[in-house]
């Protein structure tokens, strides 16, 4: 985790300076902050009083520094008490649950039902203003925050492997809490500590400003602002100094807190967010065609910018899809299937870019501008996605989402679009379509949602439909129904279908031809029957061997697909291949073995294969 040093260094230096000044206040030889000099009231800055004098002629600089001492003492003591008590309560509540939880966490929840300043005023009413009251009150105010944080963290920590392991070794509860859990939840607590510190300073100064906090003549920033307010027409600068110091202090603590949070919680850091995005994209996308309404993909490359430099998860991918044909693209996760498809529709994330060519309707999809691409999407080329749960907008009725697709590309009245949606629902086999049009996605099962997605995709009778693992999230019987539906629709409309999957069983059922991808490369291509009968590439053979069959036990493929940053040279499969030789480390070309049958492996001898 690298952080820009300035992000931490600047606020940390500011805070350090303030703390040192506050601690060293008695040693700095400052004028007495409470000694009045009424003759020189509101005096402008002079050599002996750098920031001037206040309404009682007291030295402003001295009062600012001694005020820091007051504010920090109150805020740090209260936060420390709240942190210790709150964390203990949270640990007890989270570890023992049951009654302990009721008396710690639930009580904390109730205290959080009060706006903080009101609870503070209530306590001041009972105890009267003063430093002791402030510390007590702020501790009460902020204990629940720590209780909640510690409780939340311990609930997730106690189920983790390392805690389970120590428990199994027979460690006692206090020991586990102190030695194992506390260090692991220290980060979030540290963040909570600095947040609370800032909030405590704000409330202390706010109450002092109202005259209900620190008691005069003790110097305090809030009191200084209160005093300077009365004389702001004569000495506006007096108002500015404490305002500036107070705001800068809070700002510095907040900034440090943000930096800390990024350190403690890498999920929120931008670098890792990018990383996660990249990882999500790697399960890929697909497209195909040739001729008037087919698709021809040539030398497609997808590059992604990552914090550690560019990667190329899809390289030199070429294939065709004929009109009315179903092409399956097959490979393990990380082979680049889904990225390929996403690239064809121009739906790559902003950190990714595509090169090469993808000719559809005589135009190269990769060079079309946004408007032209939008006119094609959902119209001539449609796509359905893997997860029907998240692919529909949860806040709109499904009928609206179907009608929207029609209306995006054709001039259609709302009732006409609704009638069309109704017909589409019937076509994709949704029971009781009139009623279901007004239902929301969460009221549908996964299979029904995928039918809605298909209705959206075929609303404008596309020439090409790309289905990216459309049945992976569904159970087996539903899978079969969806496959039947897609096959029927293809027959009826004559559209081409690109079907992306890692499931070879589905390929045999639905596809005419198959493209096998591994680590961003196409390794084999051909008719489904031929490829299944006699797989040529060792990877295809391994994939087929991994499928459970009647007469043989499945043989899993050893190892996993490497991440794009560590793709090996030459044949990318060779580190996992039993037939690998030194020659496999040289680049492999996709060679046509028999007409329409391509493979990228030096161990496949074209002539003999062709003859036999």
């Amino acid at each position: 985790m690298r952080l820009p040093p300035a992000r931490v260094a600047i606020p940390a230096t500011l805070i350090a300076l303030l703390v040192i000044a506050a601690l060293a206040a008695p040693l700095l030889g400052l004028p007495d902050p409470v000694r009045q000099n009424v003759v020189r009231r509101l005096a402008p800055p002079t050599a002996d009083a750098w920031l001037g004098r206040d309404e009682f002629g007291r030295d402003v600089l001295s009062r600012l520094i001694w005020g820091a001492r007051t504010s920090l003492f109150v805020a740090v003591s209260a936060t420390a008490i709240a942190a210790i008590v709150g964390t203990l309560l949270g640990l007890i509540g989270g570890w023992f649950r049951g009654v302990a939880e009721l008396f710690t966490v639930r009580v904390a929840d109730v205290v959080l039902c009060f706006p903080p300043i009101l609870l503070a005023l209530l306590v001041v009413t009972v105890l009267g203003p003063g430093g002791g009251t402030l510390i007590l009150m702020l501790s009460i105010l902020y204990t629940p925050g720590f209780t909640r944080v510690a409780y939340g963290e311990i609930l997730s920590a106690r189920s983790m492997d390392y805690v389970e392991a120590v428990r199994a070794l027979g460690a006692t509860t206090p020991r586990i809490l102190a030695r194992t859990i506390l260090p692991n939840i220290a980060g979030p607590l540290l963040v909570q500590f600095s947040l609370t510190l800032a909030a405590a300073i704000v409330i202390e100064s706010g109450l002092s400003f109202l005259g209900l906090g620190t008691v005069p003549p003790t110097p305090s920033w809030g009191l200084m602002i209160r005093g300077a307010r009365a004389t702001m027409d004569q000495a506006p600068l007096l108002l500015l100094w404490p305002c500036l110091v107070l705001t800068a202090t809070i700002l510095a603590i907040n900034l440090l807190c943000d930096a800390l949070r990024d350190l403690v919680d890498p999920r929120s850091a931008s670098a890792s967010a990018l990383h996660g995005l990249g990882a999500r994209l790697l399960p890929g996308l697909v497209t195909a065609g040739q001729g008037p309404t087919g698709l021809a993909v040539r030398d497609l490359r997808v590059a992604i910018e990552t914090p550690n430099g560019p990667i190329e998860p899809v390289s030199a991918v070429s294939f065709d899809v004929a009109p009315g044909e179903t092409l399956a693209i097959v490979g393990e996760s990380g082979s680049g299937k889904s990225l390929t498809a996403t690239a064809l529709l121009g739906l790559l994330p902003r950190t990714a870019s595509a090169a090469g060519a993808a000719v559809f309707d005589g135009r190269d999809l990769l060079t079309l501008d946004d408007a032209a691409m939008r006119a094609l999407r959902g119209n001539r080329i449609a796509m359905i996605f893997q997860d029907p749960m998240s692919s529909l907008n949860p806040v709109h009725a499904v009928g609206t989402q179907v009608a929207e697709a029609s209306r995006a590309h054709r001039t259609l009245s709302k009732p006409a679009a609704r009638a069309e949606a109704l017909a589409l629902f019937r076509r994709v086999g949704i029971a009781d379509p009139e009623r279901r049009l007004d239902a929301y996605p969460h009221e549908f099962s996964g299979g029904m949602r995928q039918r809605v997605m298909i209705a959206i995709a075929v609303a404008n009778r596309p020439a090409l439909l790309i289905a990216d693992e459309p049945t992976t999230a569904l159970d087996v019987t539903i899978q079969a129904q969806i496959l039947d539906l897609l096959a029927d629709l293809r027959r009826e409309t004559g559209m081409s279908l690109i079907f992306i999957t890692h499931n070879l069983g589905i390929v045999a059922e639905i596809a005419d031809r198959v493209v096998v991808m591994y680590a961003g490369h196409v390794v084999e291509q051909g008719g489904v029957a031929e490829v299944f009968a006699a797989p040529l590439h060792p990877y295809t053979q391994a994939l087929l061997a991994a499928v459970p069959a009647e007469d043989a036990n499945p043989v899993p493929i050893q190892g996993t697909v490497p991440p794009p940053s560590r793709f090996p040279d030459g044949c990318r499969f060779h580190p996992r291949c039993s037939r690998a030789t030194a020659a496999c480390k040289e680049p492999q070309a996709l060679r046509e073995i028999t007409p329409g049958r391509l493979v990228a492996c030096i161990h496949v001898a074209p002539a003999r294969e062709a003859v036999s």
Partner: protein
Amino acid sequence: MTFIASRLARTLFLAWLVATIVFLVLHLVPGDPAELLLSTGGAMPDPTAVAELRVRLGLDRPILAQYRDFVAGLMRLDLGRSLVDDYSVAGEIALRLPRTLELIFAATTLALVIGVPAGVYAAVHRGGRFDRVMSAVTAVLLAVPVFVLGTLLILVFAQMLRLTPAGGFVPFGRNPGQHLALLALPAIAIGKGLAAIVFRMMRASVLDTLSADHVRTARAKGLSNARILAHHVVRNAFTPVLTVLGLHMGALLGGTVLVEYVFNWPGLSTPLIRAVEGRDYPMVVGIVLTISGLFLLINMIVELLYGVLDPRVRAR
């Protein structure tokens, strides 16, 4: 309907808990309120006066009886009378609550009207100049305490530029223009933090939603960017904003107490601060309960709005 009823029941239960805690804080904290009330400047108060006050406050009765009367009074909206000037607490609150509500409403509206569109714009143009400037602006807005901003606003706009009065209040019916002019600065001071938080949350939430699967579906349909943003992003992205709105209400109500004082806005804060200084228990309790109740009520409304925005919540 069940959804609304369950939220209502929950809010009433929390209100009861809050009232009970207020009661406990006043009665179980060591020290006799009557004695505290009469002791000025450290001198021992007159025992007969203390005893009289104890009777008047009902403090001589068993604690459970006092609690029963307290709850019964609340249900009748009878909050007792001020110890200082004998005003009816409920009457005082009824007079001033609308003015406080107006400030809260103005501040919240301001925060949403500025924070939401700015957040969407910054997210769509992520990393652009506006985005970077706003990230610094919101950091400062979050750091400056409300009473500091209020005081500085007076310094700049009333003292130096002489654009607005330094504070005060004119009823809307008497002079609408003047009323709104006096409303502007306090509303800005109260709403600034919320505006910054709404901006940040909206920006983050729009960025999140833009990479959601259903937005990919919308793009795959070939919808225009404007329609995707308006129909599939902003509404979905608003739910987390609603959450922080509820969470931040406590701070906003606290800020209102301070800002009313800074601007001499005659809402609930003036009598509250006077009552805390004078240890006017019934008045403090009445106003604290009113504002806490307001906090719970706003949070209930926020939860009900989830149901409007997200049909999935209604089902639960």
